[in-house]
């Protein structure tokens, strides 16, 4: 493998850049998907073992352009267009990881994790345990996730609870460009397999964000308090963070909500959630996945187990219904929106 040790051009020169007002830190203006591409480029610059593989990730730069420009920079050996074969991608990525590489397989849409489920849960998640540490699988599985983009069937699901139920996997879902960059760098550095869910609905939120250009990491397993509050805790992750923000806007001024973006689903930042609910005594959880056995169920259970004496109202879940995600004519009826969140918050406050 040819190593790329020559002086690096800045990646994606089309992005706007400026120097931070205070410290002289270099900033770059990105949306979420640009932040991901930039991070991939930086990690591949830093470490020869890092490689991307998946369907259409090469010349085409991925169907969401998340790997755009990487093959031009790193060559066909490190940015590999694979056959149409998700189990093949996952299984050979496991082998690549065992063989000393740091593979970043992309699964084109979360629905197509299905054929890779077995390799992911029965192998990637288990190698460390079954070999008592002799064999490990450091890899990051990148997967666009969630609804709201008018996509065809199986392009709009939210399977995070499935993988959170599987010991041995870590599950991450950033909601902002800043978090995406730091969490992805941390995921690539992690010695265990990480599923990195990218909420496709907010890949290109209209406004870009200025974020540090240099490498930084955000630790896996730490939630972000988006806004502090005292009356009720609102917990969510991924694209629903923006529905929650819209709900905050729509709520009366005197309602003080603490909004938590989990960022990592597994391992969960229990302490931040528990502390917040112990303070507020009320909690609403929001997610896109079907309610039954969604990750909200785990959160709700943990909260009642740990905050029992502080709860003034039942923890509520605003979630997708227990139905198949409908085709796009009806998808907005399915996805939890700010109206449903506002109602849940108000009912919980009134309880």
């Amino acid at each position, binding site marked *: 493998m040819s190593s790329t040790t020559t002086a690096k051009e800045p990646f994606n020169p089309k992005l706007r850049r400026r120097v931070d007002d205070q410290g002289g830190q270099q900033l770059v203006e990105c949306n979420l998907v640009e932040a991901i591409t930039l991070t991939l480029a930086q990690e591949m610059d830093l470490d020869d073992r890092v490689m991307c593989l998946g*369907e*259409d990730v*090469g*010349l*085409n*730069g991925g*169907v969401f352009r998340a790997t755009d420009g990487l093959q031009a920079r790193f060559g066909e050996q490190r940015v590999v*267009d*694979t*056959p*149409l*074969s*998700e*189990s*093949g991608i996952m299984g050979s990525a496991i082998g690549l990881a065992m063989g000393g590489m740091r593979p970043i397989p992309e699964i084109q849409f979360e*629905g*197509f994790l*299905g*054929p890779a489920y077995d390799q992911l849960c029965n192998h990637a998640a288990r190698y460390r345990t079954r070999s008592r540490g002799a064999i490990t699988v450091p890899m990051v599985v990148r997967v666009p996730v969630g609804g709201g983009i*008018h*996509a*065809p*069937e*199986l*392009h709009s699901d939210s399977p995070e609870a499935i993988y959170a139920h599987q010991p041995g996997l870590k599950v991450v879902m950033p909601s902002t460009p800043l978090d995406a960059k730091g969490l992805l760098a941390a995921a690539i550095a992690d010695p265990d397999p990480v599923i990195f869910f990218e909420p496709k609905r907010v890949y290109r939120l209209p406004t870009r964000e200025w974020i540090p250009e240099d490498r930084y990491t955000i630790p896996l397993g730490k939630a972000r308090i988006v806004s502090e509050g005292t009356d009720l805790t609102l917990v969510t992750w991924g694209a629903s963070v923006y529905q929650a923000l819209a709900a905050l806007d729509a709520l009366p001024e005197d309602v003080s909500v603490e909004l938590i973006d989990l960022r990592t689903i597994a391992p969960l930042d229990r302490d931040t959630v528990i502390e917040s609910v112990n303070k507020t005594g009320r909690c609403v959880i929001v997610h896109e996945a079907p*309610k*039954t056995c969604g990750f909200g169920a785990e959160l709700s259970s943990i909260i009642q187990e740990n905050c029992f004496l502080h709860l003034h109202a*039942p923890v*509520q*879940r*605003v*979630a997708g*219904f*227990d*139905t*198949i995600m*409908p*085709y*796009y*004519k*009806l*998808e907005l*009826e*399915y996805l*939890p929106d700010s*109206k*449903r*969140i*506002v*109602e*849940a918050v108000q*009912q919980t406050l*009134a*309880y």
Partner: protein
Amino acid sequence: MPIRTDFSATVEHISILDEHGVLDEQLAKDTLTDEQVLELFQYMCKCRALDETAFKLQRSGRMGTYPQNKGQEAAAIGSAFAAKRGVDWLVPCYRENAALWMHGLPMHYVLLHWMGDERGNQIPQGVNITPLCIPIGTQMLHATGISWAMKLRGIPGVAITYFGDGATSEGDFHEAMNFASVQQTPTIFFCQNNEWAISVPRERQMWSSTVAQKAIAYGMPCVRVDGNDLFAVYKASRDAIERARAGGGPSFIEAVTYRLADHTTADDARRYRDPVEVEAWVGKDPIIRLRKYLVSKGLWDDAKQAELDEAGKAMVSEVVRAAEGIAKPAVSDIFDYTYATIPPELEVQRRTMRTHSLGQSPEQVGLAGR
């Protein structure tokens, strides 16, 4: 014997109508009559017209992502014409609209599907077609199962399943081929090798020099045909269907064709395809060559074409009207087709979806009076 040959196999390629519209009369015997060819040609033109319109609907925001079938009409129609409506099953992916229409699917169903409406999949009773299939490579197993059921039940039908070159990389393709061959089900595996799977060319999808040779792994009869040649496609399909119907088991057909349009309306093929390659294939367009042939036989002329184009336009408007004229689906549809009988919890979710964010029965939670 120290070294012996345990097995050998070959793959043949059939071409009957070449790209200049010249027919091999010998091979064409017992395939299609002039009337049939005329009929199918007109059908191909209409399908092309609807396909182009679907593209425009997407561009003008009246439809979601749409995968054009352009250039692959001979493969779809030549094969579907060999099947019996109401008896044989078609188990498609998404790039053979013309086959589905030929087999009895009302044309606006396909548009409805891509307009994000499940009613586009609500196949009318008596039409033996499964809905468009989005997860690649998965539907062939259903074709195996359906045709296996027909065999068990003594129904003299076959199932034809369509899929692309890319789909043959999925494990399910392998398992479907193996099941069908072991059970000797009446299944036709019809691969539309259009040389690309989104941006991945066939040579990077597989190391084998043909797709057809994959059938050798299953001891399954296979053949390659010029997929833009209506005659060759029809002949290969009819032969395979006849064999299957007679109890001779499954077959594999590789139709070598080309996707003339982008992968879908969400794709831009110029990012990864050489325009020279595309140009070359434009010259092999199945409609152009069939027209040349019909004109050379005196069966077709510009006046007829103009008339056909008009008829096509009318038909297309009709179809678009049907697809767009339908009322928005009821929101309760989200709930009502999850199970045959709606379970109590889901019933509560349906009842409270608008009035209660909690998806719980208000009485139960103690919120009723508040």
